[in-house]
C-alpha cells in the first residue's frame, strides 16, 4: 500500500505544479549552465589535444634565416628531441579578382614525397600536390571558403617578388593554422590571410632555399625540458640567423585557440556558480515559505503522533522531488545544450572532428548544490516549526500585530482606501516575508543588470579599441624597418590626411619566471592616431627611458612601475636589454607594450627607422590610395581598420564571447522564475483572504489589487537593491568573460540599468497577469473551505 503521506506528497506537488515548475526551472538552468560549460570546455580542450596529436603538431618552432639541410640531423641529436622536420616558408601576396588590395599569405612547403613527420595537413577536398609539379598547391580551406575558391580554380600570387599562376588541387585544414591573421594584427580573420602549401623543391626554388631550410619543426619526447631544447637549438642556429626558437605555447594559432578555450573555462568556472547561488538562494526562500504555509498540517501530523523525523522526511521528500527533478532536467538540458554548442564551437575553431566529453563532477556538483540549498531552506523552517508544540502549530499562523500599523494608519487612513490599507498593512506587518521576496526579486534584477552590463562592456571594448586607442583608418606595414623619410611619400599621396610612424619590434619580455613573446610598439612623441591611454582615457606621455606596459601585460609578468624587465629583442642585432617599467596603460584588446619611438631606436642603435605607419585618409580617394600603396616596394601590407573592427566584432559574437547570449537567456529565465515565484507565494498565502474579500463584495479587480499591489511595492523596492547588487556582480562576471586577448570592463552605464529594470518589470507584469488570471478563476467556496 502506498502511504497516505506519499499520496499527499504527489497531490501537493500537483497542486503547486506551477510553482514547483518555476523553482525546478530555476534550478535546472543553474545546473544546465554548469554542466554545459564544463562539458563544453572539457570537450574543446580534448578535441584540440586529439587534433594536435593526430596531425603531429610540433612542440617547438624554429625560424631561421637560412640553414643548410644537414643541420637537421644535428637538431635531432639534441637530447629530448624526438622528431625533426625542416621546411621552407615565405611570405606571399595573393591577387584576387575584384579586390584592390592583395591579400597577404604564407607559403609553406610539403615534403616532395610522403607526408610531413610533423605539422601534417588534413586534406578536406581534392588531392595532394603531385611531386615535381611546382604549380600545384593546397589552399587553406577557411581562406578558400571565404573567397569562394575551389580545387580546380587557379590562383595568382607573388612570391619573393615574382608573380606566378598556380592550380589549386586541394583544400586543407591544419592544426597549425586554426587561426590566421595578417602580420601585425591581433584579431584573426579567415578572409585576410591565406596559407598556401606546395612541394618543397618548388618553394625552395622560389625563395632561393635549395638545400636549405628556414624553419625547423621539432617534436619533443615526453620527458624533455622544453627550455633546455630551446636554448640548445638557439645555440646551434645562431650562426645561421636563428630568430629564436619558441614553444607551442607561443605559436600564434595555438595561443589564440588556447586563450579562447581558457576564456570559456574562466566563464565556466566564474559564472555558473553565481547563477547557481542565485538559484539556491531562491530555492531557500521559496521552500522555507512553502513549509511555513504547511504549519497547520505539520501540527496536525504531530498531534496524531508522527515524530519530527517522520514529518521532516515527508517534507524532505517534497523538496527533494523538486530539487532533484530540477537538477536532473538541468543535467539533461546541459548535455543537450553542450552538444548543440560544441557543434557550433567545433565549426568555429575549425576542428575537423569532435571528441565529446562530459564532466561527471559537474553533475554531482549541480545536484548536490541544489539538494543542499533546498534542504537548508526546508530544515531551517522545519526546525522552527518543530520547536512549537502541536497546539501552537495548529493555531492560525503568526497572530497579526496591528498595534504598530494602527498608529500610522490613523494619519494615512484619510488618504487611503481599504484595499490600499490592506496592502500597506501586510507589507509592514510581515517585514520578514517581504524582505525575502525583495531579496529574491533583487537577485533577479542583479543578474539582469550584470548580464546587460556585460553586453555593454563588449561594445565598450570594441569602441575603446577602434575609436579611442586607435583613431587611424589604415595601417601600413613595411617589409623591413625603413627610414622615416618614407613617411613623406605616404603623406604626399593624394587623399592621405595624416601619417604617423610606428616602430614595432618583436621581443620577448621576461621577469622572473614569467615571459611574454610579443611586439614592442614604439610611438612618436604626442601621437594622434595610435595612443597609449591611462585608466581615465588620457594619453600617456611616453618617457625617455623605460617601457609602458598594458595593465594586462604588467599583471601577466607580475611587474609594477619601477621594476626592471629583461627584453630579448628578436630582430636586427638581437640585443638583450634591461629596461625599467615606467608605467601602465589601459587597453582592452591584446597586451601591448609601448615605448617612445626615438628612445627605442636609440636603444637598438637604429636611429630614424620606422616599421609601419598609421594613416587617416579621405574615404573618397581610398581606392586610389590603396593602389598607390600597393605599388610601393617597401609596403608589405595594408590593413583597414574597418575590416579589423569587423573581424573583432565577429570574434566576440562567435567565440568565447558568444556564450554571453546563452547566459543572458539563462539569466532571463532565472529572473522570470524568481518574480513569478514571488507572485505565486503571495497568491498561495493570501488566497483565503482574497476569497473572503470577494465574498464580502469586493470586485475581482479590487481583490487583485490587494495581491498585485503588494507585488508592485515589493518589485519597486527590489529594483534599487538589485541594481546595487548587480553593480558588484557585474565585476565578477566581467572578469569571467575577459580573456588574455581582450578584456571586458564592467562599466556603470545607466542605460544597462534601465534595460534591466524593464526586464524585471516585464517579468513582474507577466507574472502578475498569470497570477491574476488564476485568482479570477478561483472557486470562492473551495478557497474558503480548504487551507492551502
Amino acid at each position, binding site marked *: 500500500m502506498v*502511504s497516505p*503521506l506519499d499520496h499527499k506528497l504527489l497531490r501537493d506537488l500537483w497542486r503547486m505544479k506551477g510553482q514547483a515548475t518555476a523553482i525546478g526551472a530555476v534550478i535546472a538552468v543553474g545546473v544546465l549552465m554548469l554542466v554545459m560549460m564544463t562539458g563544453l570546455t572539457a570537450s574543446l580542450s580534448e578535441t584540440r589535444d586529439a587534433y594536435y596529436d593526430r596531425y603531429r603538431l610540433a612542440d617547438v618552432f624554429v625560424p631561421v634565416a637560412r640553414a643548410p639541410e644537414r643541420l637537421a640531423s644535428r637538431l635531432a641529436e639534441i637530447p629530448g628531441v624526438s622528431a625533426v622536420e625542416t621546411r621552407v616558408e615565405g611570405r606571399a601576396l595573393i591577387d584576387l579578382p575584384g579586390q584592390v588590395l592583395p591579400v597577404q599569405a604564407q607559403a609553406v612547403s610539403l615534403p616532395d614525397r610522403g607526408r610531413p613527420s610533423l605539422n601534417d595537413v588534413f586534406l578536406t577536398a581534392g588531392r595532394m600536390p603531385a611531386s615535381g609539379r611546382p604549380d600545384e598547391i593546397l589552399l587553406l580551406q577557411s581562406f578558400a571558403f571565404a573567397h569562394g575558391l575551389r580545387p580546380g580554380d587557379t590562383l595568382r600570387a607573388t612570391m619573393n617578388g615574382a608573380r606566378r599562376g598556380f592550380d589549386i588541387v586541394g583544400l586543407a585544414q591544419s592544426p597549425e593554422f586554426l587561426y590566421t591573421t595578417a602580420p601585425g594584427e591581433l584579431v584573426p580573420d579567415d578572409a585576410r590571410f591565406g596559407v598556401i602549401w606546395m612541394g618543397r623543391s618548388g618553394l625552395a626554388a622560389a625563395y632561393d632555399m635549395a638545400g636549405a631550410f628556414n624553419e625547423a619543426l621539432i617534436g619533443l619526447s615526453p620527458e624533455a625540458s622544453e627550455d633546455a631544447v630551446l636554448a640548445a637549438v638557439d645555440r646551434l642556429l645562431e650562426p645561421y640567423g636563428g630568430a629564436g626558437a619558441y614553444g607551442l605555447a607561443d605559436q600564434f594559432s595555438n595561443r589564440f585557440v588556447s586563450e579562447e578555450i581558457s576564456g570559456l573555462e574562466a566563464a565556466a568556472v566564474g559564472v555558473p556558480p553565481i547563477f547557481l547561488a542565485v538559484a539556491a538562494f531562491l530555492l531557500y526562500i521559496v521552500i522555507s515559505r512553502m513549509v511555513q504555509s504547511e504549519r497547520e498540517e505539520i501540527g496536525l501530523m504531530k498531534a496524531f503522533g508522527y515524530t519530527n523525523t517522520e514529518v521532516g522526511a515527508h517534507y524532505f521528500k517534497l523538496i527533494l522531488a523538486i530539487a532533484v527533478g530540477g537538477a536532473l532536467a538541468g543535467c539533461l538540458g546541459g548535455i543537450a545544450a553542450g552538444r548543440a554548442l560544441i557543434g557550433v564551437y567545433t565549426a568555429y575553431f575549425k576542428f575537423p572532428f569532435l571528441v565529446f566529453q562530459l564532466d561527471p563532477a559537474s553533475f554531482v556538483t549541480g545536484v548536490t548544490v541544489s539538494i543542499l540549498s533546498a534542504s537548508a531552506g526546508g530544515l531551517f523552517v522545519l526546525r522552527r516549526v518543530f520547536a512549537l508544540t502541536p497546539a501552537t502549530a495548529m493555531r492560525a499562523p503568526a497572530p497579526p500585530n496591528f498595534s504598530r500599523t494602527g498608529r500610522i494608519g490613523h494619519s494615512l487612513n484619510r488618504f487611503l482606501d481599504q484595499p490600499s490599507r490592506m496592502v500597506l498593512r501586510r507589507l509592514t506587518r510581515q517585514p520578514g516575508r517581504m524582505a525575502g521576496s525583495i531579496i529574491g526579486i533583487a537577485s533577479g534584477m542583479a543578474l539582469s543588470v550584470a548580464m546587460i552590463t556585460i553586453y555593454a562592456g563588449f561594445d565598450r571594448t570594441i569602441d575603446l579599441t577602434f575609436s579611442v586607442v586607435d583613431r587611424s583608418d589604415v595601417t601600413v606595414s613595411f617589409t623591413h624597418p625603413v627610414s622615416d623619410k618614407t613617411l613623406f611619400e605616404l603623406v604626399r599621396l593624394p587623399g592621405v590626411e595624416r601619417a604617423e610612424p610606428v616602430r614595432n619590434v618583436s621581443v620577448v619580455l621576461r621577469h622572473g619566471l614569467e615571459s611574454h613573446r610579443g611586439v614592442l610598439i614604439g610611438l612618436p612623441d604626442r601621437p594622434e592616431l595610435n595612443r597609449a591611454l591611462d585608466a581615465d582615457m588620457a594619453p600617456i606621455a611616453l618617457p625617455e627611458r623605460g617601457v609602458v606596459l598594458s595593465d594586462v601585460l604588467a599583471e601577466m609578468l607580475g611587474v609594477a612601475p619601477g621594476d626592471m624587465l629583461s627584453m630579448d629583442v628578436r630582430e636586427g642585432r638581437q640585443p638583450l636589454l634591461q629596461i625599467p617599467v615606467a608605467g601602465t596603460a589601459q587597453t582592452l584588446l591584446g597586451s601591448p607594450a609601448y615605448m617612445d619611438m626615438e628612445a627605442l631606436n636609440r636603444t637598438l642603435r637604429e636611429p630614424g627607422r620606422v616599421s609601419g605607419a598609421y594613416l587617416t585618409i579621405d574615404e573618397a580617394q581610398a581606392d586610389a590610395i590603396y593602389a598607390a600603396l600597393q605599388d610601393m616596394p617597401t609596403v608589405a601590407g595594408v590593413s583597414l581598420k574597418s575590416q579589423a573592427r569587423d573581424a573583432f566584432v565577429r570574434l566576440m559574437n562567435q567565440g568565447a564571447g558568444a556564450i554571453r547570449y546563452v547566459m543572458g537567456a539563462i539569466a532571463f529565465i532565472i529572473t522570470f522564475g524568481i518574480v513569478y515565484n514571488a507572485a505565486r507565494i503571495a497568491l498561495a498565502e493570501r488566497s483565503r483572504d482574497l476569497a473572503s474579500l470577494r465574498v464580502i463584495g469586493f470586485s475581482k479587480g479590487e481583490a487583485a489589487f490587494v495581491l498585485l499591489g503588494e507585488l508592485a511595492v515589493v518589485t519597486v523596492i527590489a529594483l534599487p537593491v538589485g541594481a546595487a547588487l548587480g553593480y558588484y556582480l557585474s565585476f565578477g562576471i566581467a572578469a569571467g568573460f575577459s580573456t588574455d586577448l581582450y578584456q571586458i570592463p564592467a562599466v556603470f552605464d545607466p542605460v544597462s540599468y534601465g534595460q534591466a529594470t524593464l526586464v524585471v518589470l516585464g517579468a513582474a507584469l507577466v507574472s502578475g497577469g498569470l497570477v491574476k488570471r488564476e485568482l479570477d478563476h478561483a472557486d470562492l467556496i473551495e478557497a474558503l*473551505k480548504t487551507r492551502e
Partner: protein
Amino acid sequence: MTEAAYTTKGLTKVYGEGRSAVHALRGVDLEIPAGEVIVLLGPSGSGKSTLLNIIGGLDRGTEGLVQFRDQRLDEMKDAELTRYRRNHVGFVFQFYNLMPSLTARENVELVTEIAADPMDPDEALALVGLKERTDHFPAQLSGGEQQRVAIARAIAKQPDVLFCDEPTGALDSQTGRSVLRVLADVNERLGSTVLMVTHAASQAQMADRVIHFADGDIREIVENRKKLAPEEIEW
C-alpha cells in the same frame, strides 16, 4: 469509580509574559476516571481547550503535575510525548482539520498507518456512516461529513482516550446528534474514555460526569445519574 485515567495537580498555564500575560489555567486539580464520558462546560475563553491540549499532550503546562495512568506527562521529553499521542490518544478538533489533499479514507489511513492496533479505515468510516464517500476529498464534503471523517480518523486507532474540542460547534443540531452518537458508541464499544469540550450545556446530559469550568479553574464537578442517549438531547 474505576481507576483514574488522568490526574492533574496545581496545573497552570500562562501565555505570554509580564503585563500582557494571560493566565489560562490557574492551578487545576482534577481526576478523570477511565472509561467515562466526560463533558467540559464553560464560557468561551475560560481555558477548556488549553486544559484539553495539555492532557492530550499537544501542549505543555507552565507548572503543575499531569499524569496519565502512572506516567508523568509534564516530565516527558518531546519524543515520549509523541509516543503517548501516537499510542493512546485520538483527537477531534472544532474545525475538523483534515488534510485537504487527502481523501476521506487516506485521512484515516494517515493515523492507522502509525497506530499499534488500528481498525480497518473503511470500517471506521462505516461507523460514522460515510461508507459511500471514502474517496471524496474534504472540499467535496459538507461540514458534518468532514467532522465525521475527523471522528473516524480519531477512533480508527482505537484510542484509550478520545479528546473532542467542540465537535459539534460548527454543525447543525441534527448532524451534531449523529456525531455525538458515534462518540457514545466508541465509549460503549471500545471502552475509550471520552473527554468532550462543548458550550452547548444540554450536551452535558449524555455525560457520566460534567466539569464546569470558569476563569481557568474548575467551578464544580457534577455526576450525571440520568445519562441520556444523544438522540434525546435538544440544543
